[in-house]
């Protein structure tokens, strides 16, 4: 341990997160946490800049490249925004297929995070490979669930990473009923595995902790939110339409991060993602998912960030049940897409990426040329809350030795499954010369 009065915890490169980031915690001489930073040094991405001047129909494929883990979130948010700008609503079976594709993404993303990135923290292993030596069956179960999620994405989206079948208005090609029904046994198998996973993670030891921030999630009617919604609500009972997002969510730059900080205009830091979705919408879970949550000991809300691993497992169960429901009810639409003629306007799209709320806004010209683009990914929204959680955690547990406290901090960051690559923006450079 370093000297008490000059204590610094630093992890130069965070492990088992998506993208490149670091952590830096510093205590003052009185032993109080002076600052706790999640430093995001992932290179700037420039997406919003190079979307300008591109055609509105290109946005889903371009923004999919923001992330290899959650490309569907970007595609569907972009589609929704463009369709709103053009005055078109995509509903019926096309909307259901979007939700089905999105379920695949939730399944594969959550399965990876639970089994290879997060579980080693709870079981005392340095990484998933070391854990697999002693918990081979659990890791194989995770890989099997992830594989089925990937296969679902490939079935609907054309391929698992950066799907190619999504377009503004719907899809380039829709699956036949037989193609989807053939996949149902795989999903039923995945459902069994996912229920086992819930029980497995529920048996971990969880440190006492409670999120002190506002929770925010999309509202998608009477459904657990995944692939859209017109309103955002918080646990304070407030809500606003997605077209008012930029009035209620304020982004600012900070020197230590290529991600922007997002805060609620009236409420400071907030958290999106599984804990928020579950705490705001647990009553909308499907039968098996709700039962699994109860069996795992979750109440109507879950505010312990360490238990986010349980919520993710429950959300896998939900996504599989939803996928099975959609496949059961599926009737191929007459056309794989609805025409979306460009018109000058502004459109917004919000969906629930695995890590949380994802916002897109575009301004387009009459010929469909994109004039402005704004993308607010979940990790950018969560960064301030993650840092505040870190600060509170180290303040409370500062009796731990440096190595132990550092490991706990890393685990705490992984509670939020940050996708650092998604959140990286470009910082303006200002030169001051005498």
């Amino acid at each position, binding site marked *: 341990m370093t000297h008490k009065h000059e204590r610094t915890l630093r992890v*130069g*490169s*965070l*492990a*088992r*997160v*998506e*993208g*490149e*980031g*670091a952590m830096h915690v510093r205590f003052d001489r009185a032993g109080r946490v002076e600052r706790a930073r999640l430093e995001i*040094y992932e*290179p700037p991405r420039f997406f919003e800049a190079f979307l300008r001047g591109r055609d509105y129909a290109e946005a889903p494929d371009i923004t999919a490249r923001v992330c*290899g*883990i959650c490309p569907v979130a970007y595609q569907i948010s972009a589609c929704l925004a463009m369709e709103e700008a053009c005055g078109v609503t995509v509903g019926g079976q096309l909307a259901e297929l979007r939700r089905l594709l999105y379920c695949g993404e939730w399944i594969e993303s959550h399965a*990876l995070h639970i089994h*290879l*990135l997060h579980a080693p923290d709870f079981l005392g292993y*340095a*990484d*998933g*490979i*070391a854990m*697999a*030596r*002693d918990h*081979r069956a659990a*890791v*194989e179960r995770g*890989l099997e669930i*992830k*594989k089925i999620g*990937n296969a679902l994405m490939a079935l609907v989206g054309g391929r*698992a*990473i950066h799907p190619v079948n999504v377009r503004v208005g719907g899809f380039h090609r829709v699956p036949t009923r037989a193609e989807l029904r053939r996949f149902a046994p795989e999903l039923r198998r995945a459902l069994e595995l996912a229920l086992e996973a819930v029980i497995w993670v529920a048996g971990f030891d969880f440190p006492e902790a409670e999120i002190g921030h506002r929770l925010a999630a999309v509202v998608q009617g009477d459904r657990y939110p995944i692939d859209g919604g017109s309103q955002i609500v918080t646990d304070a009972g407030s809500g606003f339409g997605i077209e008012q997002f930029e009035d209620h969510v304020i982004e600012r730059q900070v020197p230590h991060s290529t991600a922007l900080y997002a805060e609620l205009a009236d409420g400071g830091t907030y958290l999106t993602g599984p804990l928020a979705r579950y705490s705001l919408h647990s009553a909308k879970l499907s039968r098996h998912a709700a039962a699994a949550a109860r069996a795992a000991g979750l109440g109507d809300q879950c505010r312990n960030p360490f238990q986010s691993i349980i919520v993710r497992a429950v959300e896998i169960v939900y996504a599989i049940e939803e996928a099975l429901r959609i496949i059961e009810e599926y009737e191929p639409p007459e056309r794989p897409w609805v025409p979306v003629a460009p018109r000058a306007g502004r459109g917004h799209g919000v969906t629930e990426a695995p890590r949380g709320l994802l916002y897109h806004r575009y301004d387009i010209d009459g010929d469909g040329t994109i004039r402005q683009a704004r993308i607010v990914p979940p990790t950018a929204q969560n960064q301030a809350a993650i840092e505040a959680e870190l600060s509170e955690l180290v303040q409370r547990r500062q009796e731990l030795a440096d190595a132990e406290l550092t490991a706990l901090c890393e685990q705490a960051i992984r509670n939020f499954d940050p996708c*650092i*690559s998604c959140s990286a923006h470009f910082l303006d450079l200002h030169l001051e010369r005498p």
Partner: protein
Amino acid sequence: MTPGAAPVVIGVGEEFRHDDGAGPAVVAELRKLAEAGALPPEIRLVTDSGEPTGLIELWRDAPLAIVVDAAAADPAAGLAAGDVVRWEAEYRDTGRSPMTPHHSTSTSTSTSTDTDTEQATDDRSAAPPTAGSPLPAITTPAPAPAAAHSPGSAATHALGPGAAIALASVLGRLPARLVLFAVVGADFSLGPGLSPHVADTVYEVVWDIVDEIRRPGLPARTDGDFLSWPGGCTGPRLGS
């Protein structure tokens, strides 16, 4: 034949990061040969990001998996842009030493030395590395701050074939034969196109892979001429 039961060539990398696109470039050239009927039709040619669980699925049950990836060389290793290092996994049941692919911040310590009973009896588990490996130290081109982590504990973007091999070894999911070609690159900045030395090396690697495919025990075309290149050339017409 199930997809996994066919030999597979996997080009790992991102073609828009200059030399990181070496793997996909090799696969692109192999596809030209395949389209011309110069490779056994059952050979699978794929490109991939290198995400470990995806790689494991791609090579699962394959009689032969060939992985081609770009690598950044340690200057002390004496390797230059365009050099190629080949490793082949050697398995516990053979009594030989395994590959130690110092690829992505490296698998050299992760191919398992534990004595877990489950693993020790698994024919698909790589045996522990032996001392004095002649393999030079190279790493995948990862951002500098990420360099200090073991393959399993790095950020997921720094994971690659090394972590995939280590995890597959533990799980008994290595292919029957696994060969890795690491192409030493010079430029991993943003943008398309390979640097000249790496572009030249692509041709050599294609040849080497064809040789690997020719080795006994693998399916060959019934007419036995899959190495007669299209157009009567004596070698693959690359870059055309």
